[in-house]
C-alpha cells in the first residue's frame, strides 16, 4: 500500500501550510529522511523529509497551493501502485497520530451527527476535499451573510481574513474589516486603478503583520530614548576584529552582549507578560530582528547570560545565515525574553520599536552619527547613537525601565565593564 505524505502540523497554531516547491518529481526515487518538498507555515519555511522510501508516486499540490494540516499532499510507494487521482483529503495516518485537539473535535462533531456511517463518511471527506480545492482555485471560504455584507459595503471578500474553520469568513470578520481601517475600504478602488499592484499577505508575513497589529493595539507602549556615545564601543570592536579579521564581531553582537549584561542587573526587565501574570526568566534569551527580503524574522540567541562575545557572535551568525536561507526552525524563533532591533546601518536617528509579545521590552538602536558633545566644559565631536527602549507599561514601570537604559548606556560607553 502506498504511504501518504501529508502537510505536517508544526505548531499548535498551524492550520494550513503552503507548498513552496517539490525537490522531487513524480516517478523519482526517495530515501527515508531525504527532503522531498519545502513548505511555508505561518512562521517559517521548512523542508519536509520523506518518512518512507520508494517512488514518489503522486503529488497533488504545486507551488503556492495552500493545504490544511494533515491533508494528504502526495504518496510514496512502489512502482505501479495505484493512488487516488484527486487529493483524498485528511490523512488517516496523520489523524491517527494526532491526539486531542482538532482531531478529537472532528470525532466529536461526527458522533454528534446522528446520521449513518455511510451517510457521514462521504460528506466529511467531501467537505475537506472541497476546502482544499477552494484554496487551490484561489476561492474564498465565506458565509453567505459575510458575502452579502461585503457586497453591500463594497469590500472585496478576498481582502478579508477569516477567523473560522479553515479560514472561513464570517459576517463579523467583514464588520471588523470595515471598522478596522479606513484604508481597507479604499482597497477595492485601488484594485481598479491602473499602475497599482496588490499583494495579499500570507504565511510568515501575515503572521508578523497580525502580531504587530495585536501588539501595537493591545500593549500600552512607552518608548524612552537615550543617547549613547559610541567611540569606546567602536574602538573595542575594531580591536577585537583586528584579532579575528576572518570572523568579525558585529555591532549587533555587541548590543546583544551589552543588553544581556544589563538584563543581568535588571531582572525586572527580563520578563514575559501574559494574562496579568509576569514571568521572570533566568535565561536571557535575546531575539534579534533580521530582515530577509520582505520578511521580518526574529531568531533568538539563547542563554546569552552565560555566553561570551565570541560565542554570541557564533550563535547569531549561524541563526542569521539560517534566516537568510529560510532554514530557521520554529524553536529557533521561540522563547525570547527581550528583543533588539538594530537599524544602526541606516541613517536612522531614532524610532519606536514595537514590542514582541509576550516580551515586555524591545531595544531599538539608531545610526551612529557625529554629534557635538560637551566634555569638561569644552565642546567636542563625538560619535553617538540614539537608543530607544519600548516597554510594556503593564509589566514594567517607568523608573526601572529608565534605570535599565542607564545601565545599557553605561555599559556601551564603558565596555571594559563587560568583562566584569
Amino acid at each position, binding site marked *: 500500500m502506498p504511504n501518504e505524505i501529508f502537510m505536517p502540523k508544526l505548531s499548535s497554531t498551524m492550520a494550513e501550510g503552503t507548498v513552496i516547491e517539490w525537490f522531487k518529481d513524480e516517478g523519482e526515487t526517495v530515501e527515508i529522511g531525504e527532503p522531498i518538498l519545502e513548505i511555508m507555515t505561518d512562521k517559517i519555511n521548512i523542508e519536509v523529509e520523506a518518512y518512507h522510501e520508494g517512488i514518489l508516486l503522486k503529488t497533488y499540490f504545486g507551488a503556492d497551493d495552500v493545504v490544511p494540516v494533515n491533508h494528504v499532499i502526495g504518496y510514496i510507494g512502489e512502482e505501479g501502485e495505484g493512488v487516488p487521482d484527486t487529493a483524498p483529503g485528511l490523512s488517516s495516518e496523520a489523524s491517527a497520530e494526532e491526539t486531542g485537539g482538532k482531531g478529537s473535535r*472532528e470525532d466529536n462533531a461526527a458522533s454528534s451527527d*446522528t446520521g*449513518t456511517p455511510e451517510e457521514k463518511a462521504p460528506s466529511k471527506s467531501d467537505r475537506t476535499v472541497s476546502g482544499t480545492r477552494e484554496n487551490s482555485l484561489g476561492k474564498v471560504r465565506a458565509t*453567505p*451573510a*459575510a458575502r*452579502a455584507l461585503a457586497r453591500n459595503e463594497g469590500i472585496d471578500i478576498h481582502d478579508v481574513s477569516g477567523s473560522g474553520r479553515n479560514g472561513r469568513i*464570517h459576517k463579523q470578520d467583514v464588520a471588523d474589516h470595515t471598522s478596522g481601517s479606513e484604508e481597507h475600504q479604499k482597497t477595492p478602488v485601488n484594485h481598479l486603478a491602473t499602475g497599482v499592484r496588490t499583494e495579499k499577505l500570507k504565511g510568515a508575513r501575515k503572521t508578523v503583520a497580525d502580531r504587530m497589529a495585536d501588539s501595537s493595539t493591545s500593549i500600552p507602549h512607552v518608548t524612552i530614548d537615550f543617547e549613547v556615545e559610541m567611540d569606546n564601543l567602536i574602538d573595542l570592536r575594531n580591536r577585537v576584529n583586528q584579532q579575528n579579521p576572518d570572523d568579525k564581531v558585529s555591532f549587533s553582537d555587541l548590543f546583544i552582549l551589552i543588553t544581556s549584561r544589563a538584563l543581568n542587573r535588571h531582572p525586572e526587565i527580563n520578563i514575559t507578560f501574559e494574562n496579568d501574570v509576569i514571568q521572570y526568566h533566568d535565561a536571557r534569551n535575546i531575539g534579534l530582528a533580521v530582515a530577509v527580503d520582505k520578511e521580518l524574522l526574529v531568531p533568538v540567541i539563547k542563554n546569552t547570560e552565560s555566553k561570551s562575545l565570541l560565542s554570541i557572535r557564533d550563535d547569531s551568525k549561524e541563526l542569521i545565515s539560517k534566516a537568510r536561507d529560510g532554514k530557521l526552525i520554529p524553536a529557533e524563533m521561540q522563547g525570547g525574553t527581550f528583543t533588539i532591533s538594530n537599524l544602526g546601518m541606516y541613517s536612522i536617528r531614532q524610532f519606536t520599536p514595537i514590542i514582541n509579545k509576550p516580551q515586555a521590552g524591545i531595544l531599538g538602536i539608531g545610526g551612529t552619527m557625529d554629534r557635538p558633545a560637551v566634555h569638561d566644559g569644552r565642546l567636542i565631536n563625538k560619535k553617538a547613537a540614539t537608543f530607544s527602549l519600548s516597554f510594556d507599561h503593564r509589566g514594567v514601570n517607568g523608573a526601572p525601565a529608565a534605570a535599565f537604559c542607564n545601565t545599557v548606556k553605561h555599559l556601551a560607553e564603558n565596555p571594559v565593564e563587560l568583562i566584569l
Partner: protein
Amino acid sequence: MREITYLEAVREALSQEMRNNEDVYMLGEDIGVYGGAFGVSRGMIEEFGPERIRNTPISEAAISGTAVGSALTGMRPILELQFSDFITIAMDNLANQAAKIRYMYGGKGTIPMVLRTPSGSGTGAAAQHSQSLEAWAAHIPGLKVVQPSTAGDAKGLLKAAIDDSNPVVFYEHKLLYKTSGEVPEEQYSIPLGKADIKQEGTDATIVATAMMVHKSLEAANLLSEKGIDVEVVDPRTLVPFDTETVVESVKKTGRLLVVHEAVKFGGIGGEIASIVAESEAFDYLDYPIRRLGAAFVPVPYNPVLEKASVPSVEEIVENIQEMVNYQS
C-alpha cells in the same frame, strides 16, 4: 387559565366538535369502551354512542377506505390508527385516493377527513411502534400534515383539521399525551400553516417539531445561562409550511438548526434547510445550516439505545454553541 393534558385537549376538541356537528364521527380499533390505544377517546362512546364512535376490525386499509368513502358522501370522519407505523397499511387509500380525488374530479368531490395517530419513540415499543413517518405524508400533494407539540396547539389545530375540506394527517406524539398546558375551555381554531415562535431569541434559530420542541426549549434554557439567546420555532404543520416565519427568524439570527425525531436522512429537516437556503434568508446565514435527526437505524428496543438514537438536549446545546461561537 386552566391546565389540562395534551391527551385531554385532543379529547376535548373531538367532543366539542362532535356535539356541534352531527357529520363528525370517529372510527378506529378499540376506540369504544377501551378508549383507544392511549385512552384518548375514553368515555366518548358513553356520550356519543357506538354509531359515532365506531370500533373497526384490525385493518387500517378498511378503516382508511371507509373514511375516504364516507367523506365523499359528505361525512367528516376522524379515524384513529393505534400507532402511526401502521399508516403503511392505510397508505394506498391515503396517497392514491384521499389525496387525489379532489384534484382528479375537478373539485366535484372533497375528502374532509382527519387521520389521527400517535407517533414517535421513547416508550420502549420497539421498531414497529416507534417511528416518525411524517415526511412520507408531507411528500404527497393533497395531504395536509399536522404535528402539534402542546396541549393548546393540539386542541386548536385539531379543530382546524376537522373544519378543513381536505384530508389531514394529525400526528400526536406518544410522550406528549401526558404533558400539560394552558388550554382555553371554549372551542377555537389555530389555522393550519401558521408556525409558532415558542421562544424568541437573536443568536440562532432552532426549527423543531413535536417532542423536539420541548427538548429545544430545554436546550434554550441551558444556553441562555451561557448567554446564548435562541429562538425556537415550531412549524406546527408541515403541510402547509409557514415559510415566512422560519425565513424571517433566520434572517434575524443568521443561524439555523433543524431538529426532528424522524430519521435525519430524507427527513423533513432537509426540506426546511432547503427552503431557507433558497430563500432571501440565504444572505443572512452566517454559519452552515445544521440538522439533527434520528440515526439511520430502526428504532432500537433497548431503552439506552432507543434514547441514543434520537437527538438529545445535550446535542442541541453542543451544536448551537459550536454554531454561535464558530467553533468548527
